[in-house]
């Protein structure tokens, strides 16, 4: 919400800053967290595409006022029919 002068209210600013900082804190203080997330993401993704081995990159990034989970996964090729074993 914007206030009278067109600035966002400090309550909302505080909330966004907190969400942002906590996303990083939670990921940093629990090293297994990112590891598990990466493993699970890769398991699902590889059902659809053949992942190009090295260079999988998964990280939390601050984008303006929110946190984004950004993945860079090299793809060797797409599987012909989505999830294998589904047909």
């Amino acid at each position, binding site marked *: *919400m914007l*206030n009278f002068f067109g600035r966002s*209210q*400090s*309550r*909302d600013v*505080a*909330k966004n*800053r*907190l*969400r942002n*900082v*906590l996303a990083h*804190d*939670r990921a940093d*203080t*629990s090293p297994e967290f990112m590891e598990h997330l990466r493993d699970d993401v890769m398991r699902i993704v590889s059902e659809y595409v053949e992942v190009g081995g090295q260079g999988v990159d998964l990280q939390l990034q601050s984008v303006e006022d929110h946190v984004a989970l950004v993945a860079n996964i090299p793809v060797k090729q797409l599987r012909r029919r989505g999830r294998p074993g589904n047909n």
Partner: protein
Amino acid sequence: MGEVIVITSGKGGVGKTTTTANLGVALAQLGLKTCLVDADIGLRNLDVVLGLENRIVYDLVDVVEGFCRLKQALIRDKRLDGLSLLPAAQTKDKTAVTPEQMRTVTDELRQEFDYILVDSPAGIEQGFRNAIAGADRALIVATPEVASVRDADRIIGLLEAAEIPPARLIVNRLRPGMVRKGDMMSVDDIVDILAIDLIGVVPEDEQIVVTTNRGEPAAMSRESRAGESYRSIARRVRGEEVPFAEMDEPTGFFGRLRRIFGQA
């Protein structure tokens, strides 16, 4: 068998000691035998907030080192039946007590009291480790500020790792007027972000300064709004369902009138 509850926050200055003192008073007023333990060794404060500073003979470290029996170190509050304090040492530091020793002390207190409230020092180092060592559950104090909520989140993670059951949250020093104007995070904002259960909301109250000056916790008097909140929290601690009071400050003529007649 009594229950051991640690009161903690991570960040300093958010009102752990004031909360411990007032909650202790409120529990004792309900007729529950309550012992307050100051785990902030080297920075003893709970004694002055309670106004018991002149009655200290022995302290927690004396008990642990075997200079006295536990009962000799306990100070009974003469104003309020059922309330006792186990003071911290002022001359030692956090390393004077180990988590195992702390557990031994709180376990002994369980035999005697219904509730043992442990006032944790700020931080996440050994003082904190000691404070949570014997705890069955935790109450987390946070003010509606980014730094305080952030530290509370870290503490929640550490309590989970220590396998202490889900902590409950006390939002302290809330200013409802500022929340309405969009200048302070609301209780819902904080609960939403931390994803833990709320056990109470304490409004900012100048009476806290006055009562702390006097060494008479606000919960001892009927006039303080904060004191009223602590009494509600005490009842929730022992398992009662107490509805959360509307935290809106009364405004306008009728609001002021309501306040005068004590319904606000």
